[in-house]
């Protein structure tokens, strides 16, 4: 089973002094099926004055901290050691027809039949959320999704097909979008980064009545043979999990057109980026700022390396 050491460093440099800073961090990898966080430290420079740990409403660990002395640089260093078990994937063609998932949710959520617990928990990922409004483009997104979700097609197969199509139709371009770029615009311009592709895919799935959640995490980037690992070249990653009856949550990474299989480390999940962004803060002062993020995921010991190499972040 792969064992990873993860270093996630975020450095904010402000134009002028920040007098007061309050931050929420989703930086401790959550424990979940197939993943266990063995150790975690969070170091904050300059030293923070208040720190609180808690679990948010999606079950993710979250750290709240504040800095009350003037500072012009904020550095947050997260170090985690995580054991990942490659997931046992259902054979795509063996999964149930996707309409079954839709029906299950429809009956469970909009009918007058008593609500089952699973549908209730899944249900919160079925509808619009702050970063993923299902307004006007939902019909177009639905049409786009339906080309993969053909009648009777096995759910997982359709899911992988949609991820492949997004990967083929959209260009990875970090300069094209920002955190605030709406899904509709990403769909229009056909480019973006992992966060955009994940939001887009979630929007497509919700538009056709399925439940999908946003997963924030890390990806081990394989170095090309003979070259050293690029330290600090990586950033945090995001992908999608969709709910499939009888199987549960199935992860899929549209940015890399792949099924996470031992090379993905889950940090947190929620309805969209807004629920799980690694650092969210409110500051007083500061003027403009520059942020540098560096992520390094290193295998520990001789743990088996995953078979799927990431092609892109």
């Amino acid at each position, binding site marked *: 089973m792969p064992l990873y050491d993860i270093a996630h460093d975020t450095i904010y440099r402000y134009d002028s002094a920040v007098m007061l800073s309050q931050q929420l961090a989703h930086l401790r990898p959550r424990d979940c099926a197939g993943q266990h966080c063995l150790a975690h430290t969070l170091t904050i420079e300059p030293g923070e004055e208040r720190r609180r740990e808690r679990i948010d409403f999606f079950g993710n660990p979250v750290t709240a901290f504040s800095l009350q002395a003037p500072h012009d640089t904020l550095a947050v260093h997260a170090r985690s050691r995580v054991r990942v078990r490659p997931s046992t994937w259902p054979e795509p063609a063996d999964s149930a027809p996707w309409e079954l998932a839709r029906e299950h949710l429809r009956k469970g959520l909009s009918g007058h039949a008593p609500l089952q617990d699973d549908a209730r928990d899944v*249900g919160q990922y079925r509808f619009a959320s702050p970063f993923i409004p299902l307004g006007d483009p939902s019909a177009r997104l639905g049409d786009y999704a339906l080309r993969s979700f053909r009648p009777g097609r096995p759910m997982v197969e359709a899911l992988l097909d949609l991820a492949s199509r997004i990967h083929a139709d959209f260009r990875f371009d970090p300069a094209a979008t920002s955190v605030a770029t709406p899904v509709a615009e990403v769909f229009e311009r056909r480019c973006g980064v992992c966060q955009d592709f994940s939001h887009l895919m979630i929007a497509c799935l919700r538009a056709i009545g399925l439940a999908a959640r946003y997963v924030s995490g890390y990806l081990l980037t394989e170095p090309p043979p003979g070259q050293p690992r690029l330290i600090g070249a990586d950033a945090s990653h995001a992908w999608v999990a969709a709910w499939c009856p009888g199987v549960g949550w199935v992860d899929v990474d549209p940015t890399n057109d792949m099924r996470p299989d031992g090379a993905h480390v889950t940090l947190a999940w929620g309805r969209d980026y807004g629920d799980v962004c690694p650092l969210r803060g409110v500051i007083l002062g500061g003027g403009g700022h520059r942020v540098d993020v560096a992520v390094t995921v290193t295998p520990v010991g001789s743990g088996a390396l995953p078979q799927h190499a990431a092609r892109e972040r």
Partner: protein
Amino acid sequence: MSEATRTGAKPYDEMHSADGAVRPHYQPYERWLHEMPRELIERKRSEADIAFHRVGITFNVYGAEGGKERLIPFDLLPRIIPGSEWRELERGLAQRVRALNAFLADIYHGQEILRAGRIPADQILDNAQFRPEMKGVKVPGGLYSMIAGIDLVRAAGADGKGEFFVLEDNLRVPSGVSYMLENRKMMMRLFPDLFSRYHVQPVDHYPDLLLETLRAVAPAGVVDPTVVVMTPGAHNSAYFEHSFLAQQMGVELVEGQDMFVQDDVLYMRTTQGPRRVDVIYRRIDDDFLDPLAFRADSMLGVPGLMRAYQAGHVTLANAVGTGVADDKSIYPYVPEMVRFYLGEEPILNNVPTWMLREQDDLAYVLDRLPELVVKEVHGAGGYGMLVGPASTKAEIEDFRQRILAAPEKYIAQPTLSLSTCPTFVEAGIAPRHIDLRPFVLSGGKQIRMVPGGLTRVALKEGSLVVNSSQGGGTKDTWVVD
């Protein structure tokens, strides 16, 4: 549907019965009006105008750049409710608010009503007002809407008797109570002799009740809680009321910038150093409360407030996430909540409502669009609404297409004929449509309200719109014994 809500029924007249006779509770007033010389009434009217203008100059945003607050016209003719009628309303209101609070507690905890299939889960989950942040959060007394404003209207039945219906529940930040108090003050000042002819139940203790309510929901263990009123600021249209209530209760009127959170405890900045805050009567929407939890661009909130709240170190009144219970899509289920949580039959009725997500309702409504009112479930302020009898054929057809595209987004109701009350107008005294907003306070184990509430009146002839933004005025509301 009941006869009372049938389209086109003659409106119920609060002062006169069908045969034109003055109803008993209006008779002393009628005699008094008869004795009063017309000129005196006219003089009192202008006196009231001047006095309100002065108060307006004192309290309203007057000539300020940001604020366009206007004076709301005040009508001298009171709306009178017999005590027996009020007691029945009071029971119904208390029952309804109790059920709504039980619903909110359930929705953010066990969700029994969803498990029982009484309300479809998507009505909750697919509702922007549902706040996952509130799941599992314990609030004092299990109370969410400590201050509720329930909008009531009276429609005429076939037997000539009026029947009250709940038009809307306001569980977030209901406003208007300052007008109720100011109107009473004005009436007592202008017509002291009238009050010797009636035993009018007092309302001016409302600020005391409100303060008691707020103190009763302080976090457990706090002996002498510090209560504050939180306002978005001086340019908010209801700022007058915020400042008025803070003054009347003798508590601080704070803005977000006046407070900060440390170790999950909320403090306000005073000239004597930080002072702990235990209860916030907040007059600001959920979205703006805490930029760390909700809208990051909110300049009005307090970073970390939500954490302090979740930790139980401060009480918000009303709670976060109450909007999920006063949404138009949830309204039709309120009678069901009364049955489910209280095991009682609702005392106050809803206006009959068709939910177009249901096939049968949809078919029924599409057949009768010209008679009905169709509302968008998440719409507000009259936007996305079709008033059948007042619309052209083309408008109705256009709306039909919109409904067909997404029926689940709409509900429909009969066109209600609100009751009328005689009102001073240019030409003398004439009937105008009115509604009633009582304010229901829940704190500790008690539900309390001052008798009556705010009566709003549509000053334009025939108009059913009582909103102040569209030519509505207010009346003093008397509950008499």
